[in-house]
């Protein structure tokens, strides 16, 4: 009698979900389309970028006080991506980085197009580069580039 073979079959699970971004991220994305990066103030006065509906530390609703930030900012930490994949924001080696935009109190995750890993360091200055054809999403902020390279 032969050994029983374990059953095996492919299983593709796929669905296109929808997302409602709500009024706060809705305004953020709308501003990005116009080439502006906006943050929102918490009631304690901290500027959150990207903006949130609530202060993540307290749960309190954020204020209606919006401020334009950047386009310059500072890298607070980063990781080099030597071999980008199809879904990555850039098709050449880049850094994923947390960037604290000028005027913001929080850092935002985005890509830095620095050319090489040796050009990256924590504390470096970067500048936002906007997409040529905005669509009203996070990709309207194409990436950040080192300030001293411009």
């Amino acid at each position, binding site marked *: 009698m032969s050994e029983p073979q374990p059953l095996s079959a492919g299983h593709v699970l796929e*669905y296109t979900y*929808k997302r409602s971004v709500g009024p*706060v991220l809705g305004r953020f994305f709308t501003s990005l389309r116009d080439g502006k990066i906006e943050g929102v103030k918490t009631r304690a006065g901290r500027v959150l970028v990207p903006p949130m509906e609530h202060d993540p530390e307290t*749960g309190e609703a954020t204020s209606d006080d919006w401020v334009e930030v950047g386009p310059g900012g500072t890298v607070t930490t980063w990781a080099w991506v030597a071999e980008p994949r199809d879904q990555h924001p850039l098709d050449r080696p880049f850094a994923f980085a947390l960037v604290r935009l000028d005027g913001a109190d929080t850092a935002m995750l985005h890509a830095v197009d620095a050319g090489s890993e040796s050009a990256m360091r924590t504390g470096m200055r970067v500048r936002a580069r906007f997409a040529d054809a905005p669509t009203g999403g996070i990709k309207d902020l194409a990436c950040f580039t080192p300030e001293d390279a411009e």
Partner: protein
Amino acid sequence: MAERCAVVGVGQTKHDARRIDVSQVGLVREAAERALENAELGWQDIDAVVIGKAPDLFEGVMMPELFLADALGGAGKPMLRVHTAGSVGGSTAVVAASLVQAGVHQRVLTVAYEKQSESNAMWALSIKIPFSQTIVAGAGGYFAPLIRGYMRRSGAPEDTGIRVAVKDRLNALKNPYAHLKFPDVDFDQVANSPMLWDPIRFLETCPSSDGACALVLAAEDAVGASPGKPAWVHATSMRSEPTMFSGRDQVNPQAGKDAAADLYKKAGITNPREEIDCAEIYVPFSWFEPMWMENLGFAPEGEGWKMTYEGATALDGDLPVNMSGGVLSSNPIGASGMLRFAEAALQVRGEAGEHQVDGARRALGHAYGGGSQYFSMWIVGEARP
């Protein structure tokens, strides 16, 4: 001896087919902020957060408790997620109450939600996993044969379900938060609506809703800080059984009967029909009202339909059922169970507005889920237990 626990804040969203005006964060916060406001408390007053929702596939957010932790003021606080399919809103409230009853926390915020417009529950329930049976037709197709089984066993008149639907839809007209409202609803309109899964007609079916519900639960020492009348938790119970096993009675499941018996014992109730003033129960398809009346011991087996027929379950009957309009009128799945528990609390607090049952002092909230296999329920009352 467990600590006493009471509901001191109740909040819910406006339920609708598509709440595209809010994010998932905004949806849960709408309910939570209303519950806090109702309790006259702030986020800083909350010791722990317990969140519940139905399967993650429903919105495609894995571990939404992490995604929503800081949106619910959970930073630096204990946060638990509960998951028991459609009964989850009830189970979540039961878990939250247990944290107070065990003396672990003074004040717990509990929230349940679903944003069905971001996905398709029918798709999520119909996944064909290799070598496994698939439900394919979603909830209606699963439950229709159970209803046929009930009709055969009880000999209930064919129009019982229509009568339930008319009652619940009329009750919904009194509830400002209800999703579906049919101002002209009557017997003929329900009877003439399309047959979806025989014997379930379109108007005997729950909708797909976006919505959330939140409760603030407090220990006895903390109750006084909230000025509203507390709804004291007299008893809670949960039971579950496997979806399929030999000899399983899916029409009148043992788990539901056991949970009800446990609940009444804990609450000191010997005659539920007499001693409970109103009940808000999980009826996603009209016929589940008579079925659960029997499962919950309000009627002898085979006679639940008589309560519907005689008007006992109407808003002015001797045991009003689904005063809010029920799941038939609003169904944000994950929140649906908690909405039942919340309605029970609103009734004994005297805060149910136009659908208030006069003199409601003790109320039952009930939820079920899966293939009629998860049950959660509680009894809340005006009197401190």
